[in-house]
């Protein structure tokens, strides 16, 4: 082989490697038409598929604009992105209870938005059954965005910017709530996190430290029952023993079902990116992962109807608790937290 052709060969090989490598981590590409979603390896079939909401880069882009636009709130002060921040895996960093319009404080902690298409229900109480209709909650909640859906549609129809964006996305000038909600669902539905150190270790592209490995073993025995990989949630409603907050009086699942057996059950959250989603639990009562582990470690202080699978946790030594925290930190996915496609388009 001549020098020149071997250079070409290497260049070619690098290019191929780049394509293969990048397509492994990018579950979708905004540059490829038609847009296609390739699921992360080992992930189950999603509950929400895009069959009736055809993936399209222009619709995704519209959804992204809407997500970061306070036009969805009554006084133009709050966007989805105000409460859901990318650096916190779209939870609200450092806020125990959500902060909405006119500085009003909500009743619950802002959850992370990640891998939402695998959710079988949404919200801490599982009251919402489809990703597309979830945003009606914050938009119309008087202490969140305090708008009416009808008025949002009116405002979008009056906006030159959105007239153009909707036209680009749907090839006609109709702006209605269905299109608004479906565009938001394309954006939130593609917030996929599956490239943490944990995933690379599972793919044999990286290795755990000894402590992380110890934490992983502990997790498998003590936490995986409710927080199973790869989603780190089984989507069920459970009581994990948190003593009842007498100020908030949040009955959890029972607010939906009115069944006394559902009192204090909440949707099991994913542990992915939990290093970044503090504070923790539906009411943000714990600020540190250490405190979360301490809670699980002290079953005698738990609300008495706690899920009995927690008994498996037993007592953890200080060293084991430390190892668990270190393992949880391997679930932080920087690719996701810094993916420019999910960032506020107004800051680019």
């Amino acid at each position, binding site marked *: 082989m001549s020098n020149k052709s071997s250079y070409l060969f290497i260049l070619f090989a690098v290019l191929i490697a780049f394509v293969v490598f990048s397509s492994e981590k990018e579950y979708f590409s905004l540059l490829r038409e038609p847009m296609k979603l390739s699921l992360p390896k080992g992930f189950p079939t999603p509950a929400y598929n895009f069959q009736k909401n055809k993936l399209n880069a222009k619709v995704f882009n519209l959804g992204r604009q809407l997500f970061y636009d306070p036009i969805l709130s009554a006084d133009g002060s709050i966007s989805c992105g105000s409460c859901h921040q990318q650096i916190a895996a779209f939870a609200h960093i450092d806020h125990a209870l959500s902060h909405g319009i006119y500085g009003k404080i909500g009743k619950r902690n802002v959850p992370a938005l990640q891998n939402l298409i695998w959710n079988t229900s949404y919200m801490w109480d599982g009251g*919402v*059954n489809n990703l597309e209709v979830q945003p009606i909650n914050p938009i119309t909640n008087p202490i969140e965005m305090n708008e009416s859906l009808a008025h949002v549609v009116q405002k979008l129809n009056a906006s030159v910017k959105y007239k153009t964006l909707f036209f680009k996305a749907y090839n006609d000038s109709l702006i209605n709530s269905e299109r608004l*909600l479906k565009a938001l669902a394309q954006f939130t539905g593609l917030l996929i996190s599956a490239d943490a150190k944990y995933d690379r270790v599972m793919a044999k592209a990286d290795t755990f430290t000894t402590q992380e490995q110890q934490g992983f073993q502990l997790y498998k025995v003590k936490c995986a029952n409710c927080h199973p990989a790869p989603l780190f949630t089984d989507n069920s409603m459970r009581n994990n023993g948190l003593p009842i907050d007498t100020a908030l009086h949040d009955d959890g699942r029972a607010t939906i079902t009115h069944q006394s057996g559902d009192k204090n059950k909440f949707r099991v959250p994913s542990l992915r990116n939990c290093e970044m989603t503090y504070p923790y639990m539906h009411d943000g009562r714990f600020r540190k992962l250490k405190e979360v582990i301490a809670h699980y470690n002290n079953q005698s202080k738990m609300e008495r109807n706690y899920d009995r699978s927690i008994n498996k946790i037993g007592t953890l030594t200080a060293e084991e608790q430390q190892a668990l925290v270190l393992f949880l930190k391997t679930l932080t996915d920087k690719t996701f937290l810094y993916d420019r496609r999910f960032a506020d388009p107004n800051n680019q």
Partner: protein
Amino acid sequence: MHRFLKLSAFTGAIGLLVVFYSFYLIKRPIRSNLRINIIHLVGNRELKLDSVTYHNGLNQAYTVSKFKYYLSNFELINSNHQAIPLGEYFLIDEEDPASKKIAIKNLPSGVYTGISFLIGVDSLHNCSGAQSGALDPINGMFWAWHTGYIFFKLEGKSTASKQAGGNFEWHIGGYQEPVNCIRKVNLNFKQKKSSSLDIDLDLVADINNLFTNPKVIDLANFSSVTGVEKATTIADQYSQLFYLR
């Protein structure tokens, strides 16, 4: 001779056309429509919002300010007792007279003995995400925090109500057991109806039935039904709401 040939060819052609056209007319399936005129009554009087005071089975005085509900999944029952699905979702609103005249086009041909429909929205369409038309959440018949359509709204005032301002309100929905408020209504035609003609129906909703059939409803106990509790009781009442006139 030449001229005669030309003329007969011409009339022949016209004749053929006429024959083909009449074949076409015979063969062409006749597509008729179902038109339903919905009539809201209280007893034998037409419902008037706000301005007229009515009395229920317990002689409790009340007025009505809102009467709004979904009808869906229409079916015609043919003479072989088969249900022929027509689908469709309609939101009926006393405040919007146009919504009380509904039509389903292009009926499948047949001879029909009755009609059935759901009051409410089937479970699939309670879980289908964002929708438009009658099912657009903008219509104010949608619960966001506990996803699902509000199938039925009756609001008004009553001296018997225990609520502030004497208001009463029924917002009924729920597509899952144990709170399933979807009700199927089956109504027989007095005479068989053929789809060779448009089918016109007068469908009457008598609000009196809501308070008396199958149970007698006390507005003091039912001044606010907006969630899970007591919802199925009201659903049983509205299952008896309609008749054909």
